[in-house]
């Protein structure tokens, strides 16, 4: 058992990172999985060996050299400022962390593969967006703050790394909003609100990726040797209004500034991690084209956008849906009424024209 990959996974303290590292350890072509993070993971890591190290300092280079790592999967890109301990820390973890990690990778002669989990947030969201972004399109409005800007910078560093180490296979996965019963992210905490605030007059298009699909596509990209940048999302589109109706939750249409300030109140109250760039997303929405994911990367998501959302919604109790219950009751009554004979109508009230015209 000396052959096989040695994979280093960053960001294993969080649930998705931990589960990914565990599932990767079960792959036959992988000899060893090393999980790295600043804090130890809460759950069970299984066969994964955990190294407590900060990717923001050069210690990580020693880990890569000592363990003879040939594959690095960078998952430690944080979208929630609250979990990182503030926007400043989040930016530092994201941007400085990636810089240090890539610097360490550049110095490691053993390294052959780099997989980076990016996000479709890099495309931004504006009224001038095309309906579906392909991988070679640029955002129409360059992101100026927050998570989107972090990711744009990270992608810049990764491109720079790919130029300097052309012998390393680099795969970037731009994943749509990951959703699922166990995911905590700005979008899932938004949909977990009992009453969902929406921007009045706008109905954005949404795309989701199921958490299982995220793990599977990362595994696929780690094991298969396909370089490039790929959009990853479930098939199809859901409109926000449609998504809210499917959850059977009431929505509250507010003007955009009110949604923004409500979001910051919720963020401060730690109720929901409602990031400011999410407002643009909830106004204009976004769609990405996944043709390259199918044809070049050779990955087919198991869940469509609608199925992923349904799986997420299953864990949430409905707080609305009264209209449907009323309609269902009427339908029920109608079905029962059809079973027994109709009450006779007075002759004067019967339709006089007869059905021959229709």
């Amino acid at each position, binding site marked *: 058992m000396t052959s096989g990959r040695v994979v280093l996974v960053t960001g294993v303290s969080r649930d998705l990172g931990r589960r990914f590292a565990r599932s990767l350890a079960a792959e036959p072509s992988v000899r060893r999985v090393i999980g790295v993070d600043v804090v130890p993971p809460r759950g069970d890591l299984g066969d994964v060996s955990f190294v407590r190290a900060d990717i923001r300092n050069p210690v990580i280079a020693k880990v890569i050299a000592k363990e003879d790592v040939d594959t690095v999967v960078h998952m430690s890109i944080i979208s929630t400022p609250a979990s990182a301990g503030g926007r400043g820390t989040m930016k530092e973890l994201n941007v400085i962390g990636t810089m240090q990690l890539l610097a360490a990778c550049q110095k490691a002669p053993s390294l052959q593969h780099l997989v980076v989990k990016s996000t479709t947030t890099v495309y931004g969201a504006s009224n001038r967006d095309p309906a579906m972004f392909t991988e070679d*399109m640029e955002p129409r409005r360059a992101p100026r703050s927050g998570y989107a800007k972090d990711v744009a910078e990270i992608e810049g560093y990764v491109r720079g790394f790919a130029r300097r180490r052309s012998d390393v296979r680099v795969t970037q996965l731009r994943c749509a909003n990951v959703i699922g019963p166990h995911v905590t992210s700005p979008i899932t905490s938004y949909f977990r609100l009992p009453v969902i605030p929406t921007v009045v007059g706008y109905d954005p298009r949404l795309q989701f990726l199921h958490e299982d699909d995220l793990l599977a596509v990362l595994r696929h990209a780690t094991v298969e040797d396909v370089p490039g940048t790929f959009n990853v999302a479930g098939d199809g589109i859901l409109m926000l209004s449609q998504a809210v109706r*499917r959850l059977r939750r009431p929505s509250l249409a507010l003007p955009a500034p009110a949604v923004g300030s409500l979001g910051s109140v919720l963020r401060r109250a730690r109720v929901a991690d409602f990031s400011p760039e999410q407002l643009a997303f909830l106004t204009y929405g976004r769609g990405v084209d996944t043709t390259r994911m199918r044809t070049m990367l050779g990955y087919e998501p198991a869940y469509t956008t609608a199925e992923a959302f349904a799986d997420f919604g299953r864990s949430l109790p409905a707080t609305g849906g009264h209209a449907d219950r009323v309609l269902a009751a009427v339908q029920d009554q*109608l079905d029962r009424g059809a079973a027994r004979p109709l009450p006779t109508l007075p002759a004067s009230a019967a339709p006089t024209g007869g059905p021959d015209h229709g």
Partner: protein
Amino acid sequence: MGDAEIIPIGTRGRPGRGTGKQPSSAARDLAAGRPAPRRPQSTTGPETGPGPAAGSRPEPVEESVQVQPVQPVEPGPAPAPRVPVTTEDRDPRGIPLSDWLAAFQHAAREVFGDEWEPQLARLLAFLRRRVTGDYAVDEYGFDQEITERFFMAALRPIAEKWFRIEVRGIENVPADGGALVVSNHSGTIPVDGLMTMVSIHDHTGRFLRPLGADLVFRMPVLSTLARKGGATLACNEDAERMLRGGELVGVWPEGFKGIGKPYSDRYKLQRFGRGGFVSAALRTGVPIVPLSVVGAEEIYPLVGNVTWLARLLGLPYVPVTPLFPWLGPLGLVPLPSKWLLEFGEPVRTDEYDEGAADDPMLVFNVTDQVRESIQQTLYTLLMQRQSVFR
């Protein structure tokens, strides 16, 4: 205090008009077929004796109808032979469910005819699908169900009854596969686009997918309606994607220059943008169908433009027409001009070779060809038209 004079208002619930001292003769005749015995005023009704104080309101008329029978307080000369008024409490649950159901079925039969049950079941199923979000939209956000059942149904009477649209050359619109419909643009508000969508759908069964300016997608409500109705942003990426997907795409290359031109410039085609629509058609090899619309220029004759307000609101223009804003919302009613829509001979683009879309000279030539063809058809249609409204 007690001897204050009471001026009664009304008849205090007793029959007849007048002073209220005694029933009128007509009322007496009606009472029991014989004259009612005269009684003192205080014995009838719930009031006993004169009112408690001056200025107190006379008892309302409804007081006389009570659940309990009224007992005369003082024994009069002869007790009233009237049967005591009693009302029975109705069914405390209100109207019984079976009555509701019967009325409901009755109404359903009136509305839907004899086939009411399946019709109603379909309507209910539709409503339930809508409220539970159980419907599909395509990747541009196009909601076919709501477009067909709601938007088209709402626009159809306007197209048929108000503008009396006459469609010519509909056979030039391909029955399937991608095609690009290029039309002139006019009318201050893009009503011509909506009418073209309805006309094409009603004559061919296909949905025209309009390309809209980014302004449309910046505006609340409008952006939602546009996406639901099948529109997407007018950019090369989306145009090519839709055409490759075999959609029938509509463009109005004049844009705001065309729609917001003054009435004096009517039926003069403006510049056709940068010819982006032609390069999209060349890249995808789909035919270009020129469409000439006559009648839309006259619905809101644009005689002025509030430039400062337009700049303030970030709009291309704020129109002033002979009726708007002078008549307020009434000025928004379009004038009932007679419309003619003529689809011209398709311009084929699949005969050019590979790099044709990147040849600016060729793109300009094709653009001009399409523009000329629309302009010529406009002139011909204008010659044939008897008047603006007929």
